[in-house]
């Protein structure tokens, strides 16, 4: 049973990645015409003699039918072969690897700070539901969740690097710098993503905890005279953490989007910067690589949440 459930989830994740890769291919290479239309501007296209254009198409393999190219694309992606850039011919993997690592580090640091904070705030708000403490936490959460990341970041810069200059406004560390050095150089960037994440996760954890505390099982414990603190920490917490895990995994996608914006604001050398550069330079292979890598991270996060649910909750193994 357990083996089957694990296998089913692995297959579903694989299927999602396959569909996503097809979608990335469709959006970047088929719909807009072809890779050449994407790489060259309209002026450059019309200025090129037809024979040169034909030659270029053959070089890039664009004379082959779309289905065949999709097959080649999927094969390349499965082997993590992202090809070379159109303009300089440099390997895409080399360009994308360090920014990808840096963004993962930013995401990891954010979650390491945000998850425990959100857990404490969410539980406190749920336990004291309707009281002043809940009001304060819930209001702060909805405000934090409603303000765009780049506004939060800008306010932090105005406060802590303009009005009271104790932190740098931009990250000066090199793309290939050790992670400890890079994160130490980006305190405001980390703080910005943490604020948004805590606001989001607190709302979900509060809702989960309220639902758990209202269940019959918890009511029975209360009637049995077990102290409230023990009910919350020993009985309700594990039950509330399970759905929170799924919610946190779903948050991975939103976290990546937030990180892209914050990287641009603070000049943090991650995939956000690389992505915007690739879009403006019309570097299709780089865009494809970033999209696939980011999607793989989100799919992996969801798979990890699903598998830990299986490990912790026997009811789901059916």
């Amino acid at each position, binding site marked *: 049973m357990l083996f089957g459930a694990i296998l089913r989830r692995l297959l579903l994740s694989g299927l999602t990645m396959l569909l996503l890769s097809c979608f990335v291919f469709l959006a970047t290479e088929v719909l807009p015409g072809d890779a050449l239309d994407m790489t060259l501007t309209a002026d450059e296209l019309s200025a090129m003699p037809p024979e040169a254009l034909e030659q270029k198409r053959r070089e890039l393999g664009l004379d082959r039918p779309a289905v065949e190219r999709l097959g080649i694309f999927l094969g390349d992606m499965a082997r993590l072969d992202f090809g070379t850039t159109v303009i300089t011919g440099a390997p895409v993997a080399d360009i994308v690897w360090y920014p990808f690592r840096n963004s993962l580090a930013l995401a990891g640091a954010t979650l390491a700070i945000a998850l425990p904070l959100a857990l404490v705030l969410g539980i406190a708000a749920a336990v004291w539901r309707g009281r002043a403490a809940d009001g304060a936490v819930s209001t702060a959460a909805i405000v934090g969740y409603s303000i*765009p990341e780049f*506004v939060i970041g800008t306010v932090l810069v*105005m406060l802590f690097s303009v009005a009271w200059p104790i932190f740098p406004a931009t990250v000066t560390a090199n793309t290939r710098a050790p992670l400890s050095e890079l994160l130490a150089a980006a305190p405001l960037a980390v703080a910005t993503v943490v604020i948004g994440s805590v606001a989001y996760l607190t709302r979900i954890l509060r809702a989960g905890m309220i639902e758990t505390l209202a269940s019959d099982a918890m009511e029975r414990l209360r009637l049995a005279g077990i102290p409230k603190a023990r009910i919350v920490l020993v009985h309700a917490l594990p039950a509330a953490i399970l759905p929170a895990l799924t919610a946190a995994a779903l948050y991975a*996608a939103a976290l*990546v989007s937030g990180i892209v*914006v914050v990287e641009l604001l603070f000049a943090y050398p991650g995939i956000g910067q690389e992505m915007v550069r690739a879009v403006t330079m019309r570097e299709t292979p780089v865009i494809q690589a970033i999209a696939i890598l980011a*999607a793989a991270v989100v799919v992996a996060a969801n798979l990890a949440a699903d598998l830990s649910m299986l490990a912790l909750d026997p009811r789901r193994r059916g």
Partner: protein
Amino acid sequence: MTNETLLRLGRRPAAVTALTVVALHLGAAVFAPLLSPADPYAMIGFPLMPPDGTNLLGTDELGRDFLTRLLHGGRTALLVAFASGALAVGGGGLAGLAAARYGGWVDDAICRLVDMQLALPSILFVSLFVAGFGQSLPMLVLVVALLMSMGVVRTARAQGLGLMEQGFVKAAILRGETGFSIILREMLPNAAELLAVELALRSSSALLLVSALSFLSLGISAPTPDWGLMIRDGLTSMRTEPWLVAAPAAMISSLVIAINVATEGVAEALGLEAARGGA
């Protein structure tokens, strides 16, 4: 909305305040040409002039009246947010109810598409299209609507599955009503309140997403007045003219906070708990 619901809403000061702020934003956007008669695209003075009697917020980096652009930015924001929100709720609502009504492979296909999209970060999703098609306002609205519709599909499907168990839907099926008529005449009216809440939530998410895209130069393009673009452009002179960043930042934040707080209040007054959270 019944009188009782309105009464319950009236007892929530935060929700009433938030609704007032949303109304003020709507008013400022609709009456922008009357409130500040300058042309938002015309250069009326030197760049970066400080605020004075005629230009209440001074001029921007191209010498255009900043207050006028700020007010017209509200028009852009509300228009894009509402257009993509409405498209998302229309399309996503129908797809979600259809998934619940038909089940089987229709349900499987729709759910798989939603799962797929939820795995791709929204900014990356949009930038794939910007890379492919270049920047244009109709495409932006369509792509953002497509993104926002995924969450609506989930909510509508859950509601639809609940409705399928109800007597009146079962009776309609037994009467031999066609599938589409059941969705439109039996299910949709009973999902209307939920979908209205979804419309507000998705519009505010769309607003956040589009402003972030504009900030990244992937959303609304210059010279259209847009708050995200204004913040991006104002960052270079943040030390000397901080209001060029602070004013659009305050506008966008107050609007999104007000929409979300008001929606939460309305949803609670209607007794809809399901509409909370959500990405």
